[in-house]
């Protein structure tokens, strides 16, 4: 289809967790949405996500980010229920609180300092430092060398894969979802955005760039900046186990089907999603120190995915001044923020604006903008 054809209210570029949550939220506001996505071999940060819906520790240098994150965590239970009702898919969201395990007294101290800092800047902040005994009561399987942990009641976890599936299912009859259509060109003409893919050109009143690392190349076409770089994370997943870990931790979490995910690595290696024996070894050693019985458990799969990272690790939310109606939405916490994206950000975009609490997240905050070209 090219040229003529219905004009959508919004075209969302990017069908991962960020784009799909926005498309979902926009459609619930009655917007006519087209969602453009890449093919089966897209980088898909969504598919490499650890699955935490995480509050603790975030935004220590940005109260706005701490508040936005907390708002999303508060909305998540209703969001999960909503998706279940609409799609019959249980995305596996649980909110038992979360733990960051500390392997030394020094780690305990710095963790405590960080969280205390957040409590000071936000005036209220729920967390608790647990010593070895208290931690062992919660998690009997924890190893001898774990000194303690920080606990936050607002933390939870979810299956990022089921979340994406539920969002795609929910939008099936409400959004024109077009996979396998990478964007070739964007043009602004006659007050509309014209987006060209291999299948032709589509027009919309507004445009949302939610293409993760792909945003770097797309943003300048609508007068925006997306200085994002890929930061690889490697994850290991085990065979299924009977439930043993009721709370997610930052580096080890047991999923809704019983498999255990091990993670938390950070490498800047460009657009390379391969996994390395060295990282697998490091992740595994730490996981076994934290839960010694894991030594006998079998690893089924590893994978690498690319986080969408800005220089300060905070999201970019911005509406273009030169091309009003074009927005950029990029973050590395697409899971945690899915609820607030669907239930607050999308309705705001439908009204033609961004929520005022997101003023802190425009790209101008970066002194130098490194525009990284996707390969």
């Amino acid at each position, binding site marked *: 289809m090219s040229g003529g054809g219905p004009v959508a209210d919004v075209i969302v570029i990017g069908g991962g967790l960020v784009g799909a949550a926005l498309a979902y939220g926009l459609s619930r506001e009655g917007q006519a949405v087209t969602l453009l996505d890449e093919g089966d071999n897209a980088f898909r940060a969504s598919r490499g996500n650890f699955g935490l819906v995480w509050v603790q520790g975030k935004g220590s240098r940005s109260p706005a980010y701490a508040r936005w994150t907390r708002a999303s965590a508060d909305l998540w239970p209703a969001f999960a229920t909503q998706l279940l009702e609409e799609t019959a898919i249980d995305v596996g969201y649980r909110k038992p609180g979360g733990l960051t395990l500390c392997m030394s007294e020094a780690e305990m101290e710095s963790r405590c300092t960080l969280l205390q800092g957040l409590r000071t800047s936000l005036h209220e902040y729920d967390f608790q430092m647990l010593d070895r005994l208290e931690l062992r009561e919660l998690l009997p399987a924890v190893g001898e060398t774990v000194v303690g942990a920080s606990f936050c009641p607002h933390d939870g976890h979810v299956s990022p894969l089921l979340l994406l*599936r539920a969002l795609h299912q929910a939008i099936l009859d409400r959004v024109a979802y077009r996979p396998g259509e990478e964007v070739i060109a964007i043009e602004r003409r006659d007050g509309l955005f014209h987006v060209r893919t291999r299948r032709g050109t589509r027009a919309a009143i507004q445009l949302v760039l939610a293409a993760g690392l792909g945003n770097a190349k797309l943003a300048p076409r609508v007068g925006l900046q997306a200085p994002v770089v890929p930061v690889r994370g490697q994850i290991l997943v085990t065979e299924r186990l009977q439930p043993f870990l009721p709370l997610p931790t930052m580096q080890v979490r047991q999923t809704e089907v019983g498999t255990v995910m091990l993670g938390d690595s950070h490498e800047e290696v460009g657009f390379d999603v391969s*996994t390395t*024996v060295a990282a697998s070894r490091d992740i595994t050693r730490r996981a076994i120190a934290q839960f010694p019985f894991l030594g*006998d458990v079998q690893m089924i799969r590893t994978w690498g995915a690319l986080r969408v990272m800005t220089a300060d690790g905070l999201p970019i939310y911005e509406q273009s001044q030169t091309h009003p109606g074009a927005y950029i939405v990029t973050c590395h916490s697409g899971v945690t923020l899915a609820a607030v994206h669907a239930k607050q950000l999308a309705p705001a975009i439908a009204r033609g604006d961004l929520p005022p609490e997101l003023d802190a997240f425009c790209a101008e905050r970066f002194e130098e903008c490194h525009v990284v070209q996707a390969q």
Partner: protein
Amino acid sequence: MRKVDLAVVGAGPAGLAAAVEASACGLSVVVLDEQPTIGGQIYRHIERVVEAAPGRTAALGDDYLRGAALAQSFRASGADYQEGSLVWHVEGSILWYLRDGRSGSLKAGRILLATGAMERPLPVPGWTLPGVMTAGAGQILLKTAGLLPGQRTVLLGNGPLLLLLAQQLLAAGGTIDAIVETVPRARYLQALCHVPAAWGSGYLPRGLRMLRALRRAGVKFYRGAQDLRIEGKEAAEAVTFRMGARMVSLAASHVFLHEGVVPNTHFTRLLGCDHLWDVGQQCFRPVTDRWGNTSVEGIMAAGDSAGILGAVAAEDAGRVAALEAAHRLGWLDSSIRDEKAHPLLRRLENQARGRRFLDNLYAPTHRVPREPDIVVCRCEEVTAGEIRSAVRIGGHGPNQMKSYLRCGMGPCQGRMCGLTVTSLIADELKLSPQEVGYFRVRPPLKPVPLQAIAEACPTEEMAEAPASGQARWG
């Protein structure tokens, strides 16, 4: 870290023959195999059987006995054999393996993957019931333990292995109630145009002899069966199918399925090699040149894992790869390599021509399950219907499908469901399997205990090994 000129993964005909040839050229060779004995699957337990159960070899036939001579050559070759070694990854030129629960590593100048074939999945209703196995499994039980299935045995499917299994079981004193073949009658005529080549390569005369023997033994033969189902509550109890207008039901406690064999591409996929959809054989195989080089420098593939040509051809292909490895490592001039390889390459071409008859006649009939309740991913119990529905919400490729439904995320890592998932997506979207693609395969090659990963020791060589020896796109 130990260094070797040629590391061979797989101690079947291709791997063993390659080791013999490479050793003769002067290379240092290590053969690693997950199993405790040499022979791969086709010659499984060959040394033990010849020594301790010679009576079994009569039933198994000359094809099996050929492995004994190969085993002897291998033992005399000077190549090092590491049994019970599961290679779980290759990073750069380093192989990572698990042996006796401990982690090991080996650096190799060149690596030859000779990991063989696997049975093509034949997903029919009830195929996950206890008592249902592949024809290959039936052969392995006979070879390794002399086991014969008891009463009510039905062989079901399509392919020469079905007839071979039947013949071997009968020769060993077993009984078979029926062979239910799914080859449409019309195809027998179509296949006739390939008869001359099939005759020349020996396939056809053997096949006809087999059929005669089975008929004489009173085995019931059904041809052109459709709508196969395996019935039973806790285990297989019956096989039902349609013959034209009439429904047939046979009591069956042992059901052996077969729909041909396909290359086991798990390793070549793991290492990022390019693959293509072979239309004649209806399967994926790695892209290799005539020498067995894959698209990844230093990685070679030979034998059935590179393309189905059978056990005899696998030896020739192994030897060709060894000669190429010797040449690349500076042990052999290209002209000597060409001279030695010439007769082997000729024989391989002859075998390939003969295969076309079989490929045509025995093309799979059940690649795309029609009924929604059929389990496709056995590990995670994902059905054909669920997969088709997921295509409609955006699962246009196997990796998105895996992410939606968990198919391919169980311990078999997609080996049993990969081809079917690709075929279902291709069927829904009216694309070719080549266009749809296949699961992305990630380390470890097979599940390994976390302790072994934790023990994978760093060395100065590891720091140099390029992280992107595998495909950039994952």
